[in-house]
């Protein structure tokens, strides 16, 4: 597999496998992550996978005796990733995410419908029938970057971001859909909310979702939502 290496500051290195978000980059990233997990070298502190890159954070102290620590890091990575092959298509875990759409849970659902000349029910129908993939977790704890949303329900970000978006809100921004795990400011159009916690600070791993997971959204009522929350709110 071909990749390039370049520094991200003096304690991290970016392994780049392509310049485009596509299935090949996704499989290469996956293969590299599996190899890093399996090798788990002592000089690796952690890694951050993204669409076309895996960034590895290294313990610089371990290279202090080298004439060129950066050169040594590159060498070790090339050695570690020797003959790594693009991952084959594998059956991915499917995570079902219940969503109560509209109303106080999704105040921008009407806007998304109007924007696309659809009824609210059509927006829900399209959103729940999508075939979604989690490309990466980033930005905030447990926050999934999800690909695969239909262009028919795309909507621009809000001109003025909200200062507070309730935790577990489901939103749309351009061609993307996603779920805010924790309360944050944000500019996405909010179409609903899930009772599921995406960020699980007391569990290991602390995230419901992982890169590569498939997602299915399904519609629930506000009564079902409250039931699933079990008075947690």
């Amino acid at each position, binding site marked *: 597999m071909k990749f390039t290496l370049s520094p*991200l500051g003096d304690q991290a290195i970016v392994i780049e496998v392509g310049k485009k978000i596509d299935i090949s980059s996704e499989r290469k990233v996956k293969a590299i992550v599996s190899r890093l997990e399996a090798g788990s070298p002592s000089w690796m502190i*952690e890694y*951050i996978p993204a669409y076309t890159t895996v960034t590895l954070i290294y313990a610089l102290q371990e290279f*202090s005796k080298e004439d060129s620590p950066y050169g040594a890091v590159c060498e070790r990575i090339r050695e570690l990733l020797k003959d790594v092959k693009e991952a084959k298509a594998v059956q991915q875990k499917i995570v079902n995410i219940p969503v109560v759409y509209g109303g106080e849970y999704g105040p921008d659902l009407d806007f998304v419908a109007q924007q696309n000349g659809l009824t609210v029910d059509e927006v829900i129908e399209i959103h729940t029938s999508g075939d979604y993939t989690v490309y990466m977790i980033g930005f*905030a704890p447990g926050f999934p*970057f999800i690909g695969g949303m239909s262009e028919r329900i795309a909507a621009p970000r809000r001109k003025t971001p909200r200062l507070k978006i309730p935790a577990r809100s489901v939103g749309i921004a351009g061609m993307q859909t996603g779920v805010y795990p924790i309360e944050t400011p944000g500019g996405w159009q909010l179409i609903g909310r899930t009772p599921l916690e995406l960020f699980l*600070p007391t569990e290991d791993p*602390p995230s419901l979702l992982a890169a590569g997971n498939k997602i299915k959204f399904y519609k629930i009522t506000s009564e079902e939502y409250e039931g699933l929350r079990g008075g947690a709110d």
Partner: protein
Amino acid sequence: MIEISKPGLHDTVQDLGRHGYQTFGVIAGGAMDPYAHRIANLLVGNEETEATLEMTLVGPRLLFKEDGLIAICGGDLTPTMEGLPVPMWRPVFIRKGSELRFGATKEGCRAYLAVAGGLDVPIVLGSRSTYVKAGLGGLDGRALIKGDVVQVMSASGLAEVMKKRLSSDASFRAADWQIAQKFLPTLSNHYEIRVMRGRQYALFDEASRHRFWNEPFTVSSQSDRMGYRINGPALHLEEAEEMISEAVTYGSIQVPADGNPIILAADRQTTGGYPKIGQLSSIDFTKLAQAKAGDQLLFKEVTIEESHRLFTKQEMNLKVLLAAIRNRFS
């Protein structure tokens, strides 16, 4: 045991960060000024990874419920006890029932208080660091408030020796030495910061690249543990380009479309989609952490090789320092 009798502007428990969970979007966090944090720990006989109290611009008042051995490093937030200044960068014995008062900053931005034994808050995902936005770590995942009580773990044998030697009937007694001048940071209102070229450096137009290295930037008031917004010449790409999000780290200098750079800091998000013109040399995180709104930053280009040399030299200095401290007390 320490009680917060009056909180400062933003007091949080921090250690050297939460590692291994960035793949799940959990930020690394940790002390903004890891250098000051580490030295404070060394001075009270702690491992450098123990949790300290990070204080910002205006510090708190702290009531010590038992005898303690402390060290204060970093920015000068004018610590006093009973009206007398408490010296920094050295071990200080504090008698039970005394109140340590910090005021507004005289120099720098952040001070670190280490207590022999280390601050005892639960370890969450491998770290005691407070990440306020996710309510994680520290004391209930938030900045300290009036009436909070922070527990302290048992001091090391080395610390017990120090404590005994400095023990006094007065409310506090500082060691009559401090760490050598060459280990102290130079605090001022302008900092020269060493920076490597960022991953997208070449995409910026020539004028922007030239101005980046030659004109000063001013730290804006919109700066916190997550990142510093800085004002100066606007920086632009040769051609507008939509970037694919990728990892960012402490010291990544991102430039959004408006042209005003943001230097990401300890509580940065794990990934970002803006082009990065530069990357701070990690040896200068301490300068960034001590820069406050209105201070000027001038970027000086270094290669990654130079940056690694500086880092290795600093690690060697810290080893020498640790040996010197041990010598004082054994």
